[in-house]
C-alpha cells in the first residue's frame, strides 16, 4: 500500500507502520463501534497514514467533522475526538459533549490529541465541566509523517510564523520529539550539525530529551550518519524565487496539499467517448496523488520543467511501441506475455496522459509574457542586478493591482537580495502597497518586517554579493537538460540552503566560516556518542546518509536539489529530508499575512 516509502535508502515504511500500530492500539482500547470526529486540519495528513479501510477494520463506522452544536446522530458506542491541542477546539468539543448528554443512550467519549496531550487543553475541558466525560484521553505522537521514500513532514502550517514572529516554540518541541521517535526507530544519529537559532534550540532539546530517556538504551544500529538542522530564516531567499522544477511548478501554480493536487478538469476529459463529449464536461476538479509510487512522476518531478517535454515525448514513443508489439505477438505464449504486461502498460499510458495534460497546463503559464517578465526580474535580483532601486516591473505590478502575494514575494526577494532596502525604496514600496491594496495591510507589512523578509538596510554594507560569490549561488552556465549543479532547479540560482548542505558534506563548513558568520544564528556541531558495538564501519564507496531538517518549511525545488545531490555518483552523501511544512513562496507569505477583517 505504501511501498514507495521503502524504496529509499532509509525504509520510511518502518515509521509509517509504527504510527499505524499506535493508532490501531488506541482504537482497540475503545471496544465496540466508533465514530471519529475530526479536526478538519488533520484529515489530510492522516490520509497518508491510514486509509478509511484501516479505520473500518477497527470498527470505525462514522466520521464527522468537528463543529459546534450537536453531533450528528450515529448509532455507535464510542465517540472519538481526534484533534490538535487547541483551546478553541476544546470549546467546540465541550459544546458537542454537553448537548449530547441530554438525549438517547449514553456513549463513551474519548479524545486523542495529535501530536501531544496538553495540560492546558485538559484544564479548559475541566473548566467547561466535561473532562470527566472522557474515558481515554491520550496523545498520538504523529510528528513526522512520511510523504515519500526520502521525505518527512510535520505539516505544521504555522510553524514558521510561530517560531519567528510569535516566539512560540511549540513546533520546535514537536520537531525534537519527532526526531527522538526517528532515533528510536533508526538509531541514534551520531553527528548533529545546525545553523540558526531554532536549530540550536532543537538540538538542545534533543540532548535534553536524550538525557531523560537514558536507561532505555537504544540498541538500534544507526541508519543516519548525520543530522543537519537548518533554520528557514538562514535562507529566506530560496522560497521567494519561483521554483522551476516540474513538481515545483505544479505546486507554485496549483498548490500540492498532502501530496494531492487539484487541477482544472478540462484537460482530463476522457477521449474515448466520441459522441456528445461536449455536454458532460466534468466540473469537479481533477484530484491526483503525486508521489514516487508513480514511476513516470518519480522520473520527471525533479527535472527542470524545460527538460520535461522531451522525456514525455520519449515515453510516449516507448509506450506506443510497446502497444504495437501486439501485432508481432504470433504464438499463444507471446500473446499471453503481452496480455500479462497490459495492466502495467495501461497504467503507464494513463500516467503519461495525465502528465502530458499537466505539462500543457503549466506550459500555458510559463510561456506567458508576464511569467517571463517576473522571472527576469527575479533572476536579475538573485544575480545582483539593480537590487538597490525601485524596480519598474514591481511598480507596474502594483499599479495594475496584480495579486498582492506576487508583489510581496518580489519586494521581499529584492529586500533579501540587497540585505535590506534603502529606507526610501522600502517606504516607497510600502506606500504603494498600502494605497493600492488598502491600509489594513500595514499589519502584514509589519509581520514581514518582523520576520526579516522585508527590512531597511542598516549599515552601509550589502552582504548578499559576498554570500552569493562565496557560495556560488548564481551560476551563469546552467544546463537544464542534463544538470551538473543544483542551480538547475531555479535555472541559474542555486538554493542557499542546499548549498550549505552540500558544502557541509564536502569540504566541510570550516571553509565558509566567514559566510556562516554573516548568516543569522549560530552554527554548531554536536556529537552523540554511540556504544562501541553500534559504531559503523563504512564500506568503501558507501554513501553517508544525512537527515536534513528544515525548520520553518522547505520547497519542492530544494528537495529536488537535494535529490540531485543524492544521485551524484561521487556525491558521497544521500539525503533524507524532513521539515515542519512543505511549502512554496505563496503559502509561506500567505501564512504571514494578516487580514484584520
Amino acid at each position, binding site marked *: 500500500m505504501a511501498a514507495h516509502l521503502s524504496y529509499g535508502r532509509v525504509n520510511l515504511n518502518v515509521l509509517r507502520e509504527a504510527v499505524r500500530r499506535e493508532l490501531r492500539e488506541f482504537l482497540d482500547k475503545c471496544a465496540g463501534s466508533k465514530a471519529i470526529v475530526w479536526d478538519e486540519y488533520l484529515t489530510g495528513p492522516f490520509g497518508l497514514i491510514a486509509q478509511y479501510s484501516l479505520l473500518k477494520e477497527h470498527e470505525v463506522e462514522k466520521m464527522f467533522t468537528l463543529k459546534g452544536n450537536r453531533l450528528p446522530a450515529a448509532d455507535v458506542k464510542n465517540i472519538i475526538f481526534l484533534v490538535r491541542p487547541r483551546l478553541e477546539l476544546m470549546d467546540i468539543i465541550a459544546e458537542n459533549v454537553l448537548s449530547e448528554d441530554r438525549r438517547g443512550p449514553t456513549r463513551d467519549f474519548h479524545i486523542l490529541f495529535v501530536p501531544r496531550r496538553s495540560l*492546558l487543553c485538559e484544564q479548559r475541558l475541566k473548566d467547561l465541566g466535561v473532562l470527566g466525560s472522557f474515558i481515554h484521553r491520550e496523545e498520538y505522537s504523529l510528528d513526522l509523517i512520511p510523504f515519500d521514500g526520502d521525505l518527512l513532514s510535520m505539516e505544521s502550517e504555522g510553524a514558521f510564523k510561530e517560531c519567528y514572529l*510569535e516566539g512560540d516554540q511549540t513546533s*520546535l518541541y514537536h520537531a*525534537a520529539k519527532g526526531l527522538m521517535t526517528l532515533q528510536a526507530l533508526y538509531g541514534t544519529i551520531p553527528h548533529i550539525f545546525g545553523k540558526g537559532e531554532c536549530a540550536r534550540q532543537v538540538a538542545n532539546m534533543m540532548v535534553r530529551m536524550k538525557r531523560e530517556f537514558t536507561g532505555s538504551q537504544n540498541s538500534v544500529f544507526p541508519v543516519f550518519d548525520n543530522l543537519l538542522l537548518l533554520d528557514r530564516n538562514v535562507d529566506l531567499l530560496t522560497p521567494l524565487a519561483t521554483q522551476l522544477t516540474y513538481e515545483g511548478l505544479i505546486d507554485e501554480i496549483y498548490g500540492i496539499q498532502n501530496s494531492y493536487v487539484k487541477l482544472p478538469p478540462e484537460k482530463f476529459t476522457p477521449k474515448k467517448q466520441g459522441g456528445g463529449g461536449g455536454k458532460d464536461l466534468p466540473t469537479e476538479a481533477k484530484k491526483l496523488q503525486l508521489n514516487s509510487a508513480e514511476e513516470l512522476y518519480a522520473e520527471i518531478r525533479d527535472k527542470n520543467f524545460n527538460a520535461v517535454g522531451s522525456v514525455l515525448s520519449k515515453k510516449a514513443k516507448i509506450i506506443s511501441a510497446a502497444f504495437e508489439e501486439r501485432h508481432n505477438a504470433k504464438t499463444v505464449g507471446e500473446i499471453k506475455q503481452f496480455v500479462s504486461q497490459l495492466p502495467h502498460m495501461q497504467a503507464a499510458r494513463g500516467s503519461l496522459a495525465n502528465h502530458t495534460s499537466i505539462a500543457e497546463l503549466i506550459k500555458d503559464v510559463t510561456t506567458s509574457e508576464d511569467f517571463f517578465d517576473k522571472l527576469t526580474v527575479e533572476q536579475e535580483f538573485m544575480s545582483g542586478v539593480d537590487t538597490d532601486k525601485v524596480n519598474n516591473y514591481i511598480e507596474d505590478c502594483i499599479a495594475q493591482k496584480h495579486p498582492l502575494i506576487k508583489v510581496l514575494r518580489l519586494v521581499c526577494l529584492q529586500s533579501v537580495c540587497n540585505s535590506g532596502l534603502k529606507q526610501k525604496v522600502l517606504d516607497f514600496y510600502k506606500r504603494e502597497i498600502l494605497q493600492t491594496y488598502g491600509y*489594513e495591510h500595514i499589519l502584514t507589512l509589519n509581520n514581514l518586517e518582523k520576520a526579516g523578509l522585508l527590512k531597511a538596510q542598516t549599515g552601509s554594507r550589502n552582504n548578499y554579493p559576498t554570500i552569493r560569490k562565496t557560495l556560488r549561488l548564481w551560476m551563469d552556465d546552467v544546463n537544464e537538460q542534463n544538470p551538473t549543479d543544483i542551480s538547475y532547479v531555479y535555472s541559474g540560482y542555486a538554493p542557499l540552503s542546499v548549498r550549505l548542505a552540500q558544502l557541509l558534506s564536502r569540504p566541510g563548513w570550516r571553509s565558509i566560516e566567514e559566510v556562516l558568520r554573516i548568516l543569522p544564528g549560530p552554527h554548531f556541531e554536536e556529537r552523540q556518542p554511540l556504544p562501541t558495538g553500534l559504531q559503523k564501519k563504512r564500506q568503501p564507496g558507501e554513501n553517508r546518509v544525512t537527515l536534513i531538517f528544515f525548520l520553518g518549511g522547505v520547497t519542492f525545488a530544494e528537495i529536488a536539489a537535494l535529490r540531485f545531490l543524492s544521485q551524484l555518483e561521487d556525491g558521497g552523501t544521500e539525503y533524507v529530508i524532513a521539515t515542519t511544512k512543505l511549502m512554496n513562496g505563496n503559502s509561506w507569505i500567505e501564512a504571514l499575512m494578516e487580514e484584520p477583517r
Partner: protein
Amino acid sequence: MDCYTANWNPLGDSAFYRKYELYSMDWDLKEELKDCLVAAAPYGGPIALLRNCWRKEKAASVRPVLEIYSASGMSLATLLWKSGPVVALGWSAEEELLCVQEDGAVLVYGLHGDFRRHFSMGNEVLQNRVLDARIFHTEFGSGVAILTGAYRFTLSANVGDLKLRRMPEVPSLQSAPSCWTTLCHDRVAHILLAVGPDLYLLDHATCSTVTPAGLAPGVSSFLQMAVSFTYRYLALFTDTGYIWMGTASLKEKLCEFNCNIRAPPKQMVWCSRPRSKERAVVVAWERRLMVVGNAPESIQFVLDEDSYLVPELDGVRIFSRSTHEFLHEVPVASEEIFKIASMAPGALLLEAQKEYEKESQKADEYLREIQELGQLIQAVQQCIEAAGHEHQPDMQKSLLRAASFGKCFLDRFPPDSFVRMCQDLRVLNAVRDYHIGIPLTYSQYKQLTIQVLLDRLVLRRLYPLAIQICEYLRLPEVQGVSRILAHWACYKVQQKDVSDEDVARAINQKLGDTPGVSYSDIAARAYGCGRTELAIKLLEYEPRSGEQVPLLLKMKRSKLALSKAIESGDTDLVFTVLLHLKNELNRGDFFMTLRNQPMALSLYRQFCKHQELDTLKDLYNQDDNHQELGSFHIRASYAAEERIEGRVAALQTAADAFYKAKNEFAAKATEDQMKLLRLQRRLEDELGGQFLDLSLHDTVATLIRGGHNKRAEQLARDFRIPDKRLWWLKLAALADLEDWEELEKFSKSKKSPIGYLPFVEICMKQHNKYEAKKYASRVGPEQKVKALLLVGDVAQAADVAIEHRNETELSLVLSHCTGSADGATADKIQRARAQVQKK
C-alpha cells in the same frame, strides 16, 4: 549417606516427609507463644507477635507490645500498642501488617513498625464488634474476612481497593460457628462455616448447605477446617477425631483418616507440593504433631514446646520459642537420588563423582552403567533439580558437582539449566542467611519471582544485598539496580537527623545519572516528609522537566517551576505553570515575572491574543512596546468598531503609538488611513454608492468610473499618488468604461509617463483594434515591434524589426508569422536574421 535419609518419614508406600531445621530462633521471647496473637507471612515472611492481654483481663495499665521479627527471629520492630483491642493479625501480600481491632478498624503497619494507614470494615462491624477475623490472600491481593458478634460475615477481597461486602445471613444461626474459613473459587471469595453437624457456604447472595462427599457418619460437629495454599483442597476435622480431605468444592473426597483424638487440634494446615499427587495435612495439638494423608498410618512428631504452623506453597513451617523448622514432602528428584539402594541415574552419578574424587576406578564403572542405559542426561538433570531442593549448601554443592561431572561426558548439553540453578542457589543461600532471614525454598522462590524478592529485600532495607543480587544476576538496570537505589533514596530522605545538603549529596553520589532513577519520586517522598528544601535540591538532579514541574508547583515554587518548564522547551508545560502563576500571584507580580522570561512572555501573549485581548494590551503597555500597541489598535479598529468615529479614534490611538515607537511611516500611513476613511464617508454622503473600506487606489478608480474626474484628481493630489500609477489607474478605469474618447483625451493630456504600449494592450484586451492602432504608432521604438504585433500588423512589425537589426525582435516577429499570408514576410525576416547573425 545412610544417615542422610534418617529424617525421612514414609507416609504410605509412595511418599516421604522430612522435617529439617531452618534456624534456631534468635529471639528472646518473654511470653509463651500461646499467650500471643501470632501472624507469620508466607514465603518466609516476617512474624508478628502481640501479647493478647485483653482476653486475660490483666491490668489495663500495662500496654501490650507489638513485636515484629524476621523468620530467623531477628527483631525488626517493637512498639507499644496504644490503640484498641486487637482480634487478629495478618500480613498482606505486600508484607504489611494488618491489625484487626475489635471495633472493625484495621490498622496497617509496615515491616518496621511504621504506621501506614487505617481503614474501617464498616458500621455493622463497628456496632456488633469483631468476634473473629482472618486475613487471606487471593490473586487480587490480600483480603480481610470478619465474623461479627451478630454472627454475620463481612469481607473485603482486596484491602488495596477496599470494597466491603456483607455476606448473606445463615438462617437461624444462634451461636458462633465452630470453625470457618474463606474459600476462593472462580475469582470470588466465599465463606465456609460449620455449625454443629452442618456446613454452610456463603457466596455473594446466597447461603447454601453443603455436604462433603463421602463423609463418615456420626459427625455432630466440625472442630477445625483447613484450606490449601491454592484454595483447591479442603480438610475437615470432626469431633469424632475423623479427618476428611477433599476438594474445596466438597464434591470429591481424596482420602480420610481417623486419628482417634477427639481433642480439638490447635492448628491444621495442608502440606503438599505443587504438581505432586500426594495430599497431606499437618495437625497440631499442644504437644503432638501429626502428618496425615492417604495412608493407614500417620507420621507423628512430638512437640517439645509451643509451636505455630505456617502453611507454605510446598510445605509447612513450624516455629517455636527455640527453633524454626520446615516440614515437606521429599521432592521426587531427591527421593530418587537419596533413597536407600536407589539405582536411579542421578544416584549413580552422585556415587560416580564421589568415587572420582576418591580417585577410585569405581567412578568409571558407575559412569559406564549410566551411559549404557543412555541415562546420563537424565542423571545430570536429576542432580541439578535435587540440588535446588536441598537446604544445606554442602549437599547442594555435591549434587552440583556431580551434575558438572556428568556434563563432561555429554556432547552439547545446554548449560543454562545448570548455570541458572547455580545462580538461583547462590541467591537463595544469601537470603536464607539468618541475618536476612527469608527461608525461601526453590519452588517458593520461583513462584515469588526475583522481582518480588528484590522488593522484599528493599522493604527490609537490605539495599546492598539487593543491589548485589541485581548485579550478580545482571538484571537490566531499570528493573534492577536503579529501582533499588531509588528505594534507598526514598528511605534516605526520611532520615530527619541528616541535613538537607548531606542527604542530597549522598543520594546524588550514589545514584548519579543511573538510568531509570526518578529523582522526582524521591523528591516527592522528601516533600511528603515535610522536607521541601531537600525536595527542591533533589529535583535539580531530575532530568525530566515533565516530572519536575508538577511537584514544584505543588510545593509552591512556581517561579522555579516556570524556569524549569522553559528549559524543557515543552510549551504546554510552560502554559500550565503560567496559568498556575496567574492565579497565584497578583497581576503586577505576574507581569513582572513574565518580564524576566521572554519565552514565557511571548507564549502568554499568544494565549492572550486568542483568549484575553485586554490583557494583551496591558502587557504591551507595561513593556512600552508601542509598535505592537499600534498594531493592536489597528486590529481593534477593524474588529470592534462599526462606526467611523470609533474606528478613527482607534486609529488615532494607533498612530500615537506608532509615533512613540518612532515608526514615522506607520504613523503617517495610519493618519492617511484616517483621512481616507473620513473622505470616503463624505463621498458616500455626497455621491452615494459604496466607498468605505475601498483602498485609496480603488476609491480613485471608482470616482473615475463614476465620472468624477475632478474629485479623483483632487484625491490623487491629496494623497500624492505617483504620476505613473495614476496613469495606470486611469487607463484601466477608462478602458473599463470603454470611454474611448476620454481615453484619447487623457493620452494627449501630456506625455505618458508609462509609455503607450499599455494603451495598446488595454485596448486589445477590450477587443478594440481600432483604438489600439491609434496608440501603436505612438509607442516608443523599443516597444514598437511588440505593439505592432499586438494589433496584428505583422508586416510593419517585420519592417521595424529589420530596421532595428535586432535578432530577438526578428525571432519574435517570425513566431507570429502564421499561414501563407505571412509567407513573404517570413522569408524577408529569415534573410534579415541571417544577415544579423553574420555580423
